């Protein structure tokens, strides 16, 4: 929700305002944002009912398998994806890589994901996102991380999960962490809020605001590990505003059918009969990785400060 400026003193046609940046995330709610690597995949995603696409070079499962440094996608490919679909196009920059972010803004992408899925460019600082006209989404594992990112200017948050695993367990953990943190704030007396802000490593004003709202002050999607319609509906029932999905679609037997089913499951997340119906006959899901199989230093969710 944004403040109302009813006195008419604001300039005519003001672009890049907080209302406009956080507002686009409001429009994405109840929807599915799909990773796409090629214009053809973008077309499939749009056809399946995606509310936006995330243009990237490789889906996280392939980044994980290939190793090496993962960077912003080729502007050529991002440009072709933007020409192919009419829905919003997001793209990822590396954590702290402000020039990749500037390039993406210059390309005209609709949202930038400052993402732990790419190899971080800065191990201490994130991009100062208030300085941009284009809105940013950032990952979090808990309330403190979410509020630090919002403090830096993120207009949308997603829980990180563990991308490219097809395993929902980390997404669930992070979403529950965020809500636990919010409920804790609401139970605290006012005179303990500053100490709690210090504990969270989060800006005091945002801590207060979150306590008043009873939710994050921006839209919060779930990401990282969604592989089935039931996974997507689970994240919605746990309080996500929408869902990101990538590897879970493309590493399955029938990506188009699965993408379509996940869209339906997000709309009807409270209706198990419909989720059952749309989950029929989708073929094999992504095989998935148990968290214990991943060496500690290869966990993507740990990136971000």
């Amino acid at each position, binding site marked *: 929700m944004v403040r109302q400026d009813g006195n008419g003193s604001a300039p005519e046609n003001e*672009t890049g305002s907080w209302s406009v940046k956080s507002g686009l995330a409001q*429009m994405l*709610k109840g*929807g599915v944002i799909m990773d796409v690597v090629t214009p053809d995949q973008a077309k499939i995603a749009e056809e399946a009912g*995606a509310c936006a696409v995330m243009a990237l070079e490789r889906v996280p499962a392939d980044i994980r398998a290939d190793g090496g440094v993962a960077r912003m996608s080729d502007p050529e490919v991002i440009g072709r994806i933007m020409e192919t679909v009419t829905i919003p196009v997001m793209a990822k920059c590396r954590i702290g890589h402000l020039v990749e972010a500037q390039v993406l803004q210059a390309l005209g992408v609709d949202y930038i994901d400052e993402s732990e899925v790419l190899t971080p460019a800065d191990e201490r600082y994130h991009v100062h996102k208030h300085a941009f006209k284009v809105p940013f989404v950032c990952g979090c594992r808990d309330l403190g991380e979410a509020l630090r990112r919002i403090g830096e200017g993120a207009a949308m948050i997603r829980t990180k999960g563990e991308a490219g695993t097809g395993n929902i367990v980390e997404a669930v953990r992070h979403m529950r962490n965020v809500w636990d943190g919010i409920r804790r704030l609401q139970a605290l007396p006012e005179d303990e809020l500053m100490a709690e802000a210090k504990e969270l490593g989060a800006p005091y004003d945002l801590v207060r605001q979150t306590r008043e709202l009873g939710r994050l002050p921006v839209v919060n999607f779930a990401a990282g590990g969604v592989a089935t319609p039931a996974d997507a509906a689970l994240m919605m029932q746990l309080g996500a505003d929408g869902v990101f999905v990538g590897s879970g679609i493309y590493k399955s037997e029938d990506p188009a059918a699965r993408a379509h089913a996940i*869209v339906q499951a997000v709309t009807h997340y409270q*209706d198990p009969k419909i989720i059952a119906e749309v989950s029929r006959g989708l073929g094999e899901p992504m095989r998935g990785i148990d968290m214990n199989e991943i060496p500690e230093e290869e966990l993507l969710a740990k990136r971000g400060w």
Partner: protein
Amino acid sequence: MAGKRDMTTIGVLALQGDFAEHIAILQRLGAEAVSVRLPEQLDGLDGLIIPGGESTTIGRLLHQWKLLEPIRELAGDGLAVWGTCAGAILLAERAPDLDREGLKLMDIDIERNAFGRQVDSFEASLSISVLGPQPFRAVFIRAPRINSVGPEAEALARLSDGTVVAARQGKLLATAFHPELTDDERFHRYFLELSANGRTSSGRVEQATAAGEGSATRDLP
């Protein structure tokens, strides 16, 4: 505003988009708000809001869940329907860049993403006579533009360059911007009045409400 005895019931299409914001404002104004995802949830409504969101996504889900025809029929019988942004695109008779058929209820031509991409999204203060003299701070997000208004409909709001950004046709309302993203409740009040009044026995819509009726009560609280 709705009376206590017969509370106005407004459905909010909840397939995708910012339906929760509409519901919150309606409830603040004392109306009953119902989420609509399936055709049977359209029963007993005085009005229906189609929220902002992604018009291609909502369009697909309207087809998928067989909501298109029932909504058309109810609108034909006098149900008030208001579309904000994506919803306005879906209400338009002519939306050439929408890849599925929409509701085609309003005699307007609408163009998707007409102002550009997200970096071109903007806020502007509009003068809207049916809402009273206070300007209305409107948020436009990858917004559509109403390129022409046919004889059945009328323009309600324009940008300073004359571009039409809100239109009305009887009890149908289209806004290219998002009143649900601001604290200004006047547009929702206006829609509640449209929904509660003017339903005649034939289901036809009375044309009287547009010209400032009741505008004295529409100042900001």
